[in-house]
């Protein structure tokens, strides 16, 4: 068989075609890379919420996806009936606030009683409550909204970064998520309330015997953690659309990120979120979009086989 280069008349055209293909590949690659980064940061919101609640209460909140869904529904209702599409950012803030109040109430009424007094396995009981909440809230959403998919108005039209076309909804959601993550990081690291949260996370009984009301911090943590999910739901509403199961995918991704990052590390969550988003996006583009849910798990298995505590996790020691 003769190689293409052996055809002198066609060699120039072939090289040109090859270069064009490479340019298209690079163009596509960049586009999917950016999409991956955007989705990664958005998943981080969910992870940060799960991680924060676990860090303070040592309870895995399995109903995070449902709080995400409530955030998405609240945003849809606000934009459709009250605010209009132009005030989507006000909607995001209000949705997060609604979910914060709901989350704090759920903690106050259903979870706090287990943390008052000495109950063994309270974390396990609380975890079961969150599973029940997930089922309850999902079914309530089906009962009220029916098995329909609601489409909120777009936050922004299609745009582009340099020459790369990009969904405006994704870009504003990305910027919104970055702002929320930045505010959350600043609150935890710089404010005195944030430092008290760190104290509760690092040594619960130590901080309690020093006079800190850990039950109050539990309620706030649950509210803030679920509010992050609610804000995520509101930001992603035009992308994932609004239906009773819309929180499922971000929740699974949120847990994957936490395992990849290792529990308790905020920078770790960002790195893991970006890695997951990129793996998912590039895998869908260059292998097959049918296996979109698998790429993250493959990444997770590879990371855990090399670093069993996750990228930034450390073995825990109780004193």
């Amino acid at each position, binding site marked *: 068989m003769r190689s293409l280069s052996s055809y002198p008349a066609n060699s120039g055209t072939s090289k040109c075609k090859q270069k064009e293909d490479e340019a298209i590949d690079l163009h596509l690659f960049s586009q999917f890379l950016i999409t991956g980064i955007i989705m990664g940061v958005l998943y981080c919101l969910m992870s940060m919420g799960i991680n924060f609640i676990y860090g303070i209460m040592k309870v895995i909140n399995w109903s995070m996806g449902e709080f995400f869904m409530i955030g998405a529904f609240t945003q849809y209702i606000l934009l459709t009936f009250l605010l209009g599409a132009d005030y989507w950012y006000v909607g995001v803030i209000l949705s997060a606030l609604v979910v914060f109040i709901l989350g704090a109430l759920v903690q106050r009424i259903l979870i706090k009683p287990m943390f008052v007094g000495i109950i063994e396995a309270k974390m396990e009981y609380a975890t079961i409550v969150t599973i029940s909440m997930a089922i309850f809230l999902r079914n309530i959403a089906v009962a009220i909204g029916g098995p329909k998919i609601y489409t909120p108005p777009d936050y922004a039209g299609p745009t582009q970064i340099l020459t790369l076309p990009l969904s405006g909804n994704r870009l504003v959601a990305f910027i919104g998520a970055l702002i929320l993550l930045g505010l959350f990081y600043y609150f935890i690291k710089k404010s005195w309330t944030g*430092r008290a949260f760190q*104290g509760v996370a690092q040594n619960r*009984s130590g901080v309690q*015997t020093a006079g800190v009301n850990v039950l109050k911090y539990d309620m706030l943590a649950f509210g803030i953690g679920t509010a992050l999910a609610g804000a995520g739901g509101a930001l992603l509403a035009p992308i994932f659309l609004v239906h009773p199961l819309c929180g499922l995918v971000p929740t699974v991704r949120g847990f994957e990120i936490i395992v990849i990052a290792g529990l308790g590390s905020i920078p770790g969550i960002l790195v893991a979120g970006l890695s997951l988003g990129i793996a998912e996006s590039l895998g869908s583009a260059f292998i097959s979009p049918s296996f979109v849910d698998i790429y993250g798990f493959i990444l997770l298995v590879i990371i855990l086989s090399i670093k069993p505590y996750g990228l930034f996790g450390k073995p825990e020691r109780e004193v």
Partner: protein
Amino acid sequence: MDDRSNLLEVKNVVKMFGGLRANDNISLQVEKGEIRGLIGPNGSGKTTLINLITGIYEVTEGSIHYYGRRIDGLQSNVIASMGIMRTFQVARVWRDMTVLENMLIPAFTQGLSRREAKSRAEELLDFALLIRLKDKQAKSLSGGQNMLLQIVRGFMHKDLKLYVMDEPFAGVHQSIKGIIIESIKMMNQGKDVTFLIVSHEMSTVKALCNKVTVLCKGERIAEGTMEEVANDPQVIDAYLGG
């Protein structure tokens, strides 16, 4: 809060862990201004008792009173806010925070102003010779320095009345032990703080405590001055017996 001499009163306290009777009908009174030692062989129930006093555990039977007010069943932070602080045998400091931040967290929850809290924290750190480490993370400190930090952190309480310490001298360097003893004396004499100290260091307990209570196998077996309990046959048997 009244000025009764009986600052702390433990009445017939029983603590069960399943079938194990960790504290068995223990009663004791601690008067205001005392430095009381709580001694006994390993497993005698000393730490369990202070965990009951500070709200870590709930009593199974009996009651605990502080200035006449019943405090068993209250949350640890509520007990702390009433002026009862404690230390743990393994220092519970916030390892990822600086020494100064460790001092300020309790003050922040007690409504002290930032300036007031910082000035008090620096004064205490200076006394404890930890001031040069104030911006270091607690995890970079030695075990003894962490214990010292844990102890002076308790002094940040603006209305500290009773300080319960669990093995404050265990495994710390002689120089740090000296600072701990000095700080206890200073707070006791200068600020009228009452101490209940669990320790195995008999010489230190003898030098520091007006009175000691001896526990053995969950029961109170003796109480009095160190000389009195040292000659008590039950105490001798508890420490030397089989």
